[in-house]
């Protein structure tokens, strides 16, 4: 990638800092091995925790005997649920109205409900000794019949995951405007099909890690945790263990990838905190990969069905969506909201469909809990609608790009609240699709495909016109759906006496580069170089309140908070400079770091103004001392980024092996703050989306366990990505920015599966499921060859 290619599509090198492809300021330290992740931090008196985990998907827990483990070399403590009788479960944070929440028990009590569930904790003087001691914990299990799949969980007479419930149904959600049956009956065209969005293991390279440090002298606790939302971690850990928030400090240092799972609070952080209180020493737990794949939350896992009606020109008339979601053994932090609200609202995508009905049901099963994973519901929704569009197009013999043009919401129809409740702020779908079609040489490919079919060669092209929703808030919307969390973001901007600035942000980067982008935003407001601006995040002592980084909200909400706060500071600087020069603010001129009053030909430097503000010898009463502003920014609404992705594939008819030959992505996230970083986000999302489409599979094994080495994309498995942007600004925040971090994970699966079906449709193949393993593609081809019912 050459620097000039960073400004692709409708991006252009800007005058100011926002929009510039600056290299990151975080990098020097990380490139020199000075990254500091939780496991790197060792405290005086450090102890180490190891967990004993259930090998059974479902079993009665008869007896947990810690006596041998407690006596092991170096062991300090062995704890089970018996030691926490008075404590509640780890409660979910998003509890959908009318759902039946069952949070994770602090440690398994009476029963174990998934392979990997923590049953006992051992604390010892080294990680190896802790692990050795953990091997000595003796546990009696009586295995019980387990239910692993949602369709088994919903059967009458299925094993109950929670004995105090009458069924395994955890939550339901049915958005839409009704009228499907009436619209579909007698429609000129109607079709239905099923599709699966498979469970995935998010697999951040750094696992979860916690170091709980309770100081008995001050009665305060510091919790080091690799987390995306440190303030919520503080609140949720405090309430789980019954510790006052004002004496709990959370420090999230460098975080080695988040992708969603590091947003939640699990058993381990609560248990380590409690162990630290008992011992009066810091207790550190660093997740091993074998724990990460079976205890840290999984993603996706929907079994879906679509029934859709259209006219013969492909105009969609009505759609009915039904989905059964597997949320695992316990309701995780956002586990009731992601598969329901985040999926249900967005199943219409960018299309105009008069009647839509959605019915989503979430089931408990004896598997690891499922929660947000890059895209968090929007990939499931986009996969469904984009596959439906292609399905209708292919059945009717309409080109898939044309089908989309006929059904897109037009610019006149936007802003719009879709019948399912999705809010679309801005979008130019025709425009962005045309851009992607041009870049992917769509027409030429169709000609090439026609010729290829003569020789039996199988190539296909697939489109995904995803949209999604980012930048959560405002809070009122969250309240309606039971999501007990703020929708704002905090920013405090403070000038230092020497003319520098510090930005304290409630966002927390786990790779996104906020220290660079937020400095760019503040730099434009303050009129100084980003080099003079430091961005601090992650420590609740420095940043007392915030919401955090998820849902691609940091630029839109956190960045807007920075812009607003920095803007107010800039205004104060200007007015103070005017005061110091005894000039009217509107007459004041600024040239770089010098403020000039032309009338009196006097000047003052930027640093002198800052110094004056903080010494306070000459500040007007309406300004007062200081140059510091805090903003809790609440966006007007969520925004709807969108894009057009196009994948080209080639399939070997004999082996079923699929090659992804080309991937074009045109994304529209409104204003782009740093095109270089934006591109990195798209790439990362694409890798995960392609991983889901072609290789990854987190579905449980027959015994309920999760495979340790699920195939992940590696260096030699991905093509170069052709990425570009159109820019359709949002009115929901002063930056005009939407989110981008999850785009690739949302767009890639439907683009690729659509391409594969496009390649094979003429053979009679109608459906394919992810991952598109060679075996499954070959099965589909052979089944069609044999004249199987399409």
């Amino acid at each position, binding site marked *: 990638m050459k620097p000039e290619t960073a400004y692709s599509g409708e991006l252009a090198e800007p005058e100011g800092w926002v929009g510039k492809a600056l290299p990151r300021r975080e990098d020097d330290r990380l490139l020199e091995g000075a990254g500091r992740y939780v496991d790197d931090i060792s405290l005086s008196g450090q102890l180490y925790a190891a967990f004993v985990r259930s090998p059974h998907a479902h079993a009665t827990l008869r007896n947990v005997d810690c006596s041998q483990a407690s006596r092991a070399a170096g062991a300090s403590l062995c704890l089970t649920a018996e030691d926490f009788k008075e404590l509640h479960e780890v409660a979910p944070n998003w509890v959908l109205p009318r759902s039946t929440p069952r949070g994770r028990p602090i440690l398994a009590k009476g029963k174990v409900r998934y392979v990997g569930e923590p049953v006992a904790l051992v604390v010892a003087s080294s990680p190896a000794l802790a*692990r*050795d001691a953990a091997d000595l914990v003796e546990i009696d299990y009586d295995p019980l019949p387990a239910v692993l799949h949602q369709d088994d969980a919903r059967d009458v007479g299925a094993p109950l995951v929670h004995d105090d419930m009458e069924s395994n149904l955890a939550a339901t959600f049915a958005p839409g405007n009704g009228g499907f049956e009436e619209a579909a009956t007698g429609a000129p065209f109607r079709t239905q099909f099923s599709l699966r969005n498979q469970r995935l293991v998010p697999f951040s390279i750094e696992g979860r890690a916690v170091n709980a440090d309770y100081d008995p002298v001050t009665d305060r606790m510091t919790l080091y945790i690799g987390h995306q939302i440190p303030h919520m971690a503080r609140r949720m850990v405090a309430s789980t263990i019954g510790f006052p928030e004002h004496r709990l400090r959370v420090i999230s240092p460098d975080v080695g990838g988040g992708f969603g799972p590091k947003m939640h609070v699990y058993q381990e952080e609560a248990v380590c905190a409690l162990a630290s209180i008992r011992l009066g020493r810091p207790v550190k737990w660093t997740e091993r990969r074998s724990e990460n794949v079976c205890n840290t939350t999984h993603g996706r896992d929907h079994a879906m069905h679509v029934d859709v009606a259209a006219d013969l020109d492909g105009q969609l008339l009505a759609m009915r969506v039904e989905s059964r979601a597997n949320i695992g053994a316990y309701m995780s932090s956002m586990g009731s909201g992601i598969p329901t609200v985040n999926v249900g609202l967005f199943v219409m995508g960018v299309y105009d469909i008069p009647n839509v009905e959605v019915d989503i049901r979430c089931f408990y099963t004896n598997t690891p809990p499922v929660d947000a994973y890059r895209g968090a519901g929007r990939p499931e929704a986009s996969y469904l609608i984009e596959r439906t569009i292609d399905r209708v197009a292919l059945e009717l013999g309409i080109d898939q790009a044309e089908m989309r043009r006929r059904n897109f919401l037009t610019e006149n129809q936007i802003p719009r609240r879709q019948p399912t409740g999705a809010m679309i702020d801005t979008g130019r779908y025709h425009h962005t699709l045309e851009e992607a079609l041009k870049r992917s040489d769509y027409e030429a490919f169709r000609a090439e495909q026609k010729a290829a079919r003569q020789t039996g060669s199988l190539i296909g092209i697939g489109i995904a016109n995803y949209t999604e929703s980012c930048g959560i808030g405002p809070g009122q919307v969250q309240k309606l759906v039971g999501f007990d969390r703020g929708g704002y973001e905090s920013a405090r901007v403070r000038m230092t006496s020497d003319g520098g600035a510090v930005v304290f942000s409630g966002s927390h980067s786990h790779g996104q580069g906020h220290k660079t982008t937020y400095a760019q935003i503040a730099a434009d407001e303050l009129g100084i170089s980003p080099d003079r601006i430091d961005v601090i995040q992650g420590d609740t002592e420095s940043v007392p309140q915030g919401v955090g980084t998820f849902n691609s909200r940091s630029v839109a909400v956190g960045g807007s908070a920075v812009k607003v706060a920095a803007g107010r500071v800039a205004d104060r600087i200007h007015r103070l400079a005017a005061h110091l020069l005894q000039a009217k603010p509107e007459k004041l001129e600024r040239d770089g770091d010098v403020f000039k009053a032309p009338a009196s030909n006097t000047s003052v430097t930027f640093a002198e103004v800052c110094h004056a503000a903080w010494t306070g010898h000459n500040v007007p009463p309406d300004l007062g001392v200081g140059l510091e502003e805090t903003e809790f920014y609440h966006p007007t609404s969520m925004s709807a980024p969108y894009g057009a992705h196009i994948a080209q594939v080639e399939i070997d008819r004999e082996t079923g092996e699929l090659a992804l030959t080309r991937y074009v992505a045109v994304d529209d996230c409104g204003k782009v703050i740093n095109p270089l970083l934006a591109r990195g986000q798209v790439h990362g999302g694409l890798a995960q989306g392609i991983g889901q489409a072609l290789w990854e599979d987190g579905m449980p094994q027959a015994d309920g366990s999760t495979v340790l*080495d699920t195939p992940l994309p590696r260096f030699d*498995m991905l093509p170069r990505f052709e990425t570009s942007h159109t820019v359709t600004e949002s009115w929901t925040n002063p930056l005009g920015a939407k989110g981008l971090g999850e785009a690739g994970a949302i767009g890639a699966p439907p683009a690729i599966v659509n391409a594969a079906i496009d390649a094979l449709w003429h053979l009679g193949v109608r459906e394919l499921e992810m991952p598109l393993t060679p*075996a499954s593609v*070959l099965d589909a081809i052979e089944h069609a060859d044999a004249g199987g019912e399409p």
Partner: protein
Amino acid sequence: MIPASFDYVAPSSPREAIRLLESDKDAVLLAGGHSLLTALKQRTKRASRVIDIAQIGLGEVSITVDGDLKIEAAVTQTALAEYCAKVGWTILAEVGEKAGDPMIRERGTFVGALCAAEPGGDWAAAALALDAQLHIYTSSGEYHLPYAEYLEDGLAESHMVLGALVPAQHRKARQGYVKVKHAGIGWSVASVGFVECGEGIQLGAGGALSKPARLRSVEDQFAKIAATDDRLASIFSALEGLEFHGDRYAPAVWRRKRLAILLRDITQAHSFKEPA
């Protein structure tokens, strides 16, 4: 995961290594460590004592006076591949490009890979096609054992493999290694090492079978297969009775077909005289 505690010792002779091995039933030998250390970390294997062969001075790859390729136990895969690229037995250079990744090959040993004999391993398949022999050392004496036998039957008594020997006759023969890689993991899902030998061909298969194996039934029928119209069908029947294994990504049925296609491609690249 973290291994359970073990002792570490680095003897300076095979005799000392065997003595250590025999004195403790839970002692194991360490060569490159890729198989052993992974198993120890996951606690699927326990060792009271790890006996590192690095100090025994078995790091040489050379050609014997008889013209055979001699590969001592501590010779790394990278060193072997580089050597063979220059002197012959080029299938081993080809495996060197397709097996693992540079970091694995830099530390992993050829002999270690043969002893571990992972189903998806590449070196074992090539060694089988090459009629490799293992140089076995025990407290009662040293001898050579065909690798195929070692793989099939194992060896009950405490022993150390000092090296491997590959016959001179295969040095310049037409040979190669074809591999279909498992997405993401790097093991093979189906692979064949082939070495032409006289009128026939020798085939070592990996990936698709439960254990790397010589495909003797396919070898015996090779000329016949090459002469039929539907090669795939005759290859399938030649593969009858072999045990295939798989996983969710690449099930056994698919691996069998993929292996058959690799074999068919090999037959197409060779021309054979019709049987007399």
